[in-house]
């Protein structure tokens, strides 16, 4: 077990002008479970592959356990990886797949079979040990893939969207298995996902990656409650935060922001000019037209059971509101919109958070 660090890692493919990874620096202390969160195309998988040694960074260094391993071959780094899909050897049984990493390293037969059995018991694979991957369900396949990564007790475990292709039940089962394993044997783990819930279930710390740059790191709670910029803010939650552009006016009574038809009193002192306001759907409420901070037209009503998503057209952009229960709003009617002013997020015109 060892700490992992990236120092200014940049990765460019071919002669492309935009690098996939741009000066990424990241510290993962020994035994930590870090989740890399980002939309597809953010460079998450490339980052993992650079860490594993399957790809060479164009610039920068990769450190595992205080040692620079940038130029070391993958096999020498003692890193294991669970791939998104299709990484089980189809011609070997589950037992063969689990034993493969140990066989390659020349472990004795007796030890191999003991370790495989132990792991199988831990991950609940005893009954499928002699089956081929093609006859397994997706959840079982990923469980075996996890087992194959864990069997040789690597220094670093890399999980590349391991739950991505699974149905909800297998997904939560496997997430629980990962969490349990990590609690018992805290191996340094870097987990990649684009799913917020998955990140929040597993991670102690989250790094948000977008456009090849680390946008923010912190606990899930920090990242959720205080997103560093509007990209992160939009990424958090489903649907993400509404962002409205407006103009702030400093008055005697306080500061007010005019966003299209909405006039929002804000707890900001002495701010004047262009501003971006973020508000989560659950902090938007509606009332009869003419009441609240301004009127907007209902465009789309999406009931989902516990609550209803209401798309409101303010004329300057769409605001999504999450209203508890079912709703009797006919699309096209005007409603009054109110924001919970204690839950507002402010960003300057470049998208950075205003403290």
């Amino acid at each position, binding site marked *: 077990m060892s700490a992992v660090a990236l120092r200014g890692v940049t990765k460019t493919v071919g002669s492309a002008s935009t690098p996939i990874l741009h000066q990424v620096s990241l510290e993962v202390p020994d035994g930590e479970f870090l989740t890399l969160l980002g939309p597809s195309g953010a460079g998450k998988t490339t980052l993992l*592959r650079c860490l*594993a*040694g*399957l790809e060479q960074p164009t610039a920068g260094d990769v450190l595992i356990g205080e040692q620079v391993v940038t130029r070391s*071959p*993958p*096999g*020498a780094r003692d*890193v*294991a*990886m669970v*791939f*998104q*899909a*299709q*990484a089980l*050897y*189809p*011609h070997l049984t589950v037992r063969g797949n689990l034993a*493969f*990493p140990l066989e*390659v*390293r020349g472990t004795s037969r007796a030890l191999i079979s003991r370790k495989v059995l132990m792991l199988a018991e831990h991950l609940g694979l005893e009954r499928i040990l002699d089956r*081929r991957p*093609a006859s397994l369900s997706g959840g079982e396949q990923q469980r075996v893939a996890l087992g*194959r990564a864990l069997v*040789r007790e690597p220094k670093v475990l890399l999980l590349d969207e391991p739950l991505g292709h699974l149905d909800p039940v297998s997904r939560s089962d496997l997430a629980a298995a990962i969490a349990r394993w990590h609690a018992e044997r805290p191996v340094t783990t870097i987990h990649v996902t684009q799913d917020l819930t998955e990140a929040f279930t597993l991670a102690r710390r989250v790094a948000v990656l977008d456009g090849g740059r680390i946008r923010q790191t912190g606990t899930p709670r920090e990242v959720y409650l205080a997103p560093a910029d509007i990209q992160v803010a939009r990424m958090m939650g489903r649907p993400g935060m509404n962002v409205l552009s407006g103009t702030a006016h400093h008055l005697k009574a306080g500061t007010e922001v005019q966003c299209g038809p909405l006039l929002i009193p804000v707890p900001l002192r002495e701010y004047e000019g262009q501003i971006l306001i973020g508000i989560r759907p659950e902090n938007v409420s509606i009332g009869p037209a003419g009441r609240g901070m301004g009127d907007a037209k209902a465009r789309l009503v999406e009931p989902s059971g516990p609550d209803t998503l209401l798309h409101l057209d303010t004329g300057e952009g769409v605001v999504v509101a999450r209203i508890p229960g079912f709703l009797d709003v006919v699309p096209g009617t005007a409603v009054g919109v109110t924001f919970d002013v204690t839950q507002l997020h402010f960003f300057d015109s470049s998208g950075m958070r205003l403290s």
Partner: protein
Amino acid sequence: MTRVNVFRWAGGLAAVVTVASAYLATTGSRRFAERRYAERTAASAAAYLARVSTPTGEPAVPLDPAAFLRRVRVLATLPDWSPDVEVYLGTAPLVHPTEASLPLSTIASLSSRNAAEWLAGAAYAPIRGTTPGRVVGVVRIRPHLPADTTAPWLLGLLGLTALLGAIAATQLRRRLWARWLGAYAVSALAFGGVAASAAHASLQTATIQWLRETAVLIEDAGSRLPHTPSLALAETFKSLAADGALAPDTSSDPVLERALAGTKPGSPLPIWLGGGRWLSLQPPLEDWVVTARHAFGGTAALAGAILLIALSWGSGDREHPGWIEETLSAWVFLAPAGAHLVALTIAPLGVLIWVAVHHWDITTGSGAFVGLGNLVDVLSHADTWSALGRTALFALHAPVVTVLALFLALMARRAPTPVVRVLLVAPPFASVVAAGLIWKNGLAAWGLFAQPWSALWTLVCIAAVLQIGYQVPAFLAGLDRIPGALWDAAVLDGAGAWIRFRRITEPLLRPVTLSILVTGVVVAVQGFTLAFVTGPNAPDLAALHLYQLGWRQGRLDLAAALAILLAVVLATLAVFQVRIWGRGMTDEA
């Protein structure tokens, strides 16, 4: 198999039977008529030759060969008597002396029977002397009836009937299906009627043709015996009438009336022999049973088959309303491929097997059944064994080339530019003949084709280059199908290049390797073109040996037997390769 499936198969089988039997019904009657005509004419011509070869009209043994030859010449040039005729004295052809001689087996089988014999599209009739059972010559007649004008009508009606039947079947249990079925029945009956009349017309044409030609023979023979009275002539020439009857014509009608009487079908044909002598040739009764059988057979087959299809569809899947249309369209789409398969693969294979078990004569296209005799014969030649041995040696290049191609494919994947791939894939772009000739002419300068052994090894090298061109892309395609994550995972586990190849690449590539290897061996064993273009010093590989045996020595039957043996050996080899090496291979791999 489910019940629906059984009916589906039955329906399909019935459709095939319909077409086949209707086709047979339309062509069978005509073939039957042709055969009738040829057999009768051959018998008449044989009787004619036996009578006219002596001055007295009495058959004599020994036959005078010179007189016989003259008569045969006369026969071949008689006016209004122009069948495709050949006369053999013993086994020697007289009309066309350059033709192949008659097999002794034909004479043997003719000597044991009295009537004409039908063999491979021609009728053979024996010419007998006075000694009982002694055949001195044979007359061969090939039928040449005028073209059948009803054939387009028959085919049109067959098509209409099939169409109506199909519609009736698809409309089964729908609103108007009974009417469609009625229309179909009418059409099937009309087909039967036309088929019957066509069959009858063919038989009649055949009889009239025979009647006229026999009349010509009797006229000619009669004119050689100018003083014999009608009654005696009728007795002397009785045998010329085959299964008809010859009698003196006693009618007192004027000459013109008598001559016209012969143009009515079924009526006796008057023959004027000069000197007031008239004979009357009475044709045999038309065989109505045959006509009816053909017509009824065709109609019944047609009706029965469509009825079976209709029944099968009717008892089909209620839950799946569109399946009749689907079955129909499936058959429509399958038909061209099926016809292609049957016409170009299955039928020739059948012919090959038939030829292989007969003592087959390349000139007559027929021969006696010998079973495995051909195989024993061909295997008793030392040539065969040396050709087989050389082929085995030649085929050994296939596994070596496969290993080489796999190595090259693995290298080519790492190659920085696609040029390497193109170069590896390029050789088979040239045709094998062109490549062989280019190589041959280029390498002949070094004397590589001067000796059989060096020619063999040179051929192995050329074949290897061509094979690599086919195999590398196949391996590249196979490698592309293996997910890259498998190698990544193995790399992370610390597996080196050799372990990755042994434990992952090779097992996952095994189905590709296996098919390439089997194909390579098959191509090598069948290797004909290369050896053929190499010229006179070409190593006598099995395929070339087959060719020499069949077309140079004219023993297609031996060649066919050897070809079948080779096919069996190859199939066994392929099965062994798959069984032994393909063990543990997974379906999904």
